[in-house]
């Protein structure tokens, strides 16, 4: 098992998250003579492995695993990692994966490197400080857990299928202290920002709710919709339906104008595939400029009204 790479598959509502394929593709590169082993948990969910490009799929079936549950999934995955002692475990840095990765680290005593965007041998590159610095870590031994930021590797390399699916036993999952209750769908009834070809997206640089008309005017002029980064939604200045990013919506408009948004990895995840990205941010070091096609480092309160005038 020495060179085997585990990839923890992620799924929700019967759909495999793309990050699973992204990690499978990377795992193939890392396996160097070992096997790529996908780990899939669920209830009647074996079919989800159909497209996995892996040497093997370890599938654990249990009613307690029908829906993601941090405790049940954590226990099951830690028991598999302990039993099979793979060299590396790749977990997505997602809402589910954030629960899982650190659990393996402690329960199986394996170093964890988080926010990973690159892995080569036992070197893992992480995106820290809101995307403002990259940090390369050398793992002490050669075993490690990496929490991988979605979108870091191409998904195509991890698709293909044909893996042998092996049933693995679930550990004792009685007496769980965390119980799944229900999924709550996002509220509808607002503009669907995923359908708008033009998005003007506003971030904390706007400073106050009273300033929102400045950016709304630009969205209106362009016939686009107003979207935002997370802090704007947390402050309740805009509804959740407008949030772009990891815990918001993924958008691919023709034009995305980021106004006063720094470009934290969690935001980038939701918009980096936009056809044309324009960023307006006073900080020339803002990470958003690494992803933008056009950048402006002037004050948004000068540029945006001037732009509305010119359009």
């Amino acid at each position, binding site marked *: 098992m020495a060179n085997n790479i585990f990839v923890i598959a992620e799924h929700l509502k019967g759909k495999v998250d793309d990050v699973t394929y992204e990690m499978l593709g990377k795992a193939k590169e890392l396996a160097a003579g070992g096997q790529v082993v996908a780990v899939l948990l669920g209830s009647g969910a074996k079919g989800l492995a159909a497209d996995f490009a892996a040497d093997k799929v370890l599938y654990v079936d249990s009613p307690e695993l029908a829906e993601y549950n941090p405790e049940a999934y954590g226990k099951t995955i830690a028991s598999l990692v302990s039993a099979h002692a793979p060299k590396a475990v790749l977990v997505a840095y997602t809402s589910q994966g954030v629960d899982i990765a650190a659990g393996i680290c402690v329960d199986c005593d394996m170093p964890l490197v988080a926010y990973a965007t690159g892995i080569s041998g036992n070197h893992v590159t992480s995106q820290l400080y809101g995307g403002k610095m990259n940090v390369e870590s050398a793992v002490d031994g050669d075993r490690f857990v990496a929490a991988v930021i979605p979108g870091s590797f191409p998904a195509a390399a991890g698709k293909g299928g044909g893996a042998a699916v092996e049933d693995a036993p679930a550990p004792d999952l009685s007496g769980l202290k965390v119980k799944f209750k229900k999924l709550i769908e996002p509220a509808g009834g607002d503009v669907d920002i995923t359908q708008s070809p033009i998005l003007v997206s506003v971030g904390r640089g706007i400073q106050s709710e009273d300033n929102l008309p400045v950016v709304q005017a630009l969205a209106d002029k362009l016939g686009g919709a107003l979207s935002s980064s997370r802090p704007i939604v947390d402050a309740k200045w805009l509804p959740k339906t407008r949030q772009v990013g990891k815990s918001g919506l993924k958008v691919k408009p023709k034009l995305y104008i980021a106004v006063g948004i720094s470009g934290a990895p969690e935001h980038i995840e939701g918009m980096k595939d936009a056809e044309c990205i324009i960023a307006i941010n006073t900080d020339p070091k803002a990470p958003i400029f690494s992803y933008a096609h056009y*950048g402006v480092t*002037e004050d948004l309160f000068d540029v945006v009204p001037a732009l509305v005038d010119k359009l």
Partner: protein
Amino acid sequence: MNIIVPIKQVPDLVEELEIDSSGKDLDREWLKYKVNEFDDHALEEALLLKEAHGGAVIAIALDGDDIDKALYAAAAKGADRVVKVTGNYAGISNRAAAKVLAGVIGGMNPGLVLTGVQSVEDRDGQIAVLLAHYLGLPHVSVVTGVEVSGGNVTVHKEYGGGMVAEFEASMPVVLGVQAARETPRYVPVARVRQAMKSTELEEIAGGDPGVSSGSSISRMFKPETGGGAEMISGSAADVAAKLAEIIKSKM
């Protein structure tokens, strides 16, 4: 019910970040620090729960630069006790910090442990989850709402796309908080100063972590900014004119 809120200081990203001469760490000499914004949310949620259900909010932090001020600020916001875990913890990894914190929090009879879901410096993992595992307690991360009833909590955990999962957990439980139900309260500096006079900052000696991150930084480097971006400069009017042209060409 004791609601424990571990907090920590992280570099303020508003400042320019520079790399030190070793090439492996930030140049921390002039760095400005602030409380991890998600820890602020955790504290807010803790205070809201206390206001609704009673109990005591205990803010706790490992010794470090400026941490006294951060703890006094927590007291000014309404924390009943503020505790500094003393020891030499400069540059400590999250895994080691979690182990030290677990040693202290384990003795505090916690009902809820609320801390930020992540911070900008979590190279070796998120404190909330590490802490839960060292405490041997269940946990849920990416939490946006907490309701307490009896010995149970109902929590909302955010997935992508605005989807939320609801879980019920029996206490004690550790929660990694993404966002409090309300915007974290603000206290003016005068109130923090007042708290410095009226609050006892408790000191508890922390143990030796006995674990490390299991990895070391081999290199720190800045991502290429503006790698692909064509930067447009000039007066606001010039910039606006050029942007207008670009936008029209894309529509």
